[in-house]
């Protein structure tokens, strides 16, 4: 009987690629779940009066942005993507934590360009003001740039310029927070869907019980 110890010194270089399969069905359904969740939470927030709607929904000052609005924004961003990650991993049928989390985060990746498109088309009033930071102006509706830049020569013009700066910075901060919360949520959702225990001690124990890299092969 031939026995061979395979370890770091004897293992051949990895000539063959070991792909990590991606279930695009799960990813797409997950991304759409995130959008649906954001729309539903956003509409509830508008209905209960947490989010302001109207011609000017710019966040000029955080003091105007109440704690209820913050709670809806945080909860909507997080739980929509938890649902997205859960759905992505469940549709893919993954029973292991790491690829399930990966699918959750890929669903988040797919949802980002969808969110950019939706906010550019006016979805800010439905999704909530935090996602307003993602809204660009479509090229086909942009006004031509003026020949000379306006110089703030009086107090009104200076205040207008400061408001514009704040209205750019605050939604950008909100959108950044919402997107990062979404990433955390999608990973947590995927982890939850895998069915593996959500505490780290399990993974240390699992690593010890699974086959180590240095194994004795007996053909």
């Amino acid at each position: 009987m031939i026995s061979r110890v395979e370890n770091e010194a004897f293992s051949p270089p990895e000539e063959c690629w070991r792909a990590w399969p991606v279930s695009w069905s799960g990813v797409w359904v997950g991304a759409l779940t995130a959008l649906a969740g954001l729309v539903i939470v956003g509409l509830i927030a508008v209905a209960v009066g947490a989010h302001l709607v109207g011609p000017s929904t710019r966040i000029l000052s955080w003091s105007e942005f109440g704690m209820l609005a913050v709670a809806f924004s945080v909860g909507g961003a997080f739980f929509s993507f938890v649902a997205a990650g859960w759905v992505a991993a469940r549709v893919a049928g993954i029973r292991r934590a790491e690829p399930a989390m990966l699918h959750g985060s890929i669903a988040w990746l797919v949802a980002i360009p969808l969110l950019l498109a939706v906010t550019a088309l006016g979805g800010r009033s439905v999704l909530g003001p935090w996602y307003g930071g993602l809204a660009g102006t479509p090229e086909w509706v942009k006004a031509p740039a003026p020949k000379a830049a306006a110089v703030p020569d009086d107090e009104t013009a200076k205040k207008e310029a400061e408001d514009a700066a704040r209205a750019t910075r605050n939604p950008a901060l909100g959108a950044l927070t919402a997107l990062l919360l979404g990433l955390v949520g999608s990973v947590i959702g995927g982890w939850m869907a895998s069915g593996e225990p959500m505490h780290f001690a399990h993974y240390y124990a699992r690593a010890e019980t699974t086959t180590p890299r240095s194994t004795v092969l007996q053909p």
Partner: protein
Amino acid sequence: MRNTFGYVILWLMGIPLTTLLLIWVVSVLVGR
């Protein structure tokens, strides 16, 4: 080994509540 309900609730409640707490602390510190 099945997932335990307590840890799921811990993660799902802990992250948004921690975020809200952080936002509140920052808003108090900044003072607006």
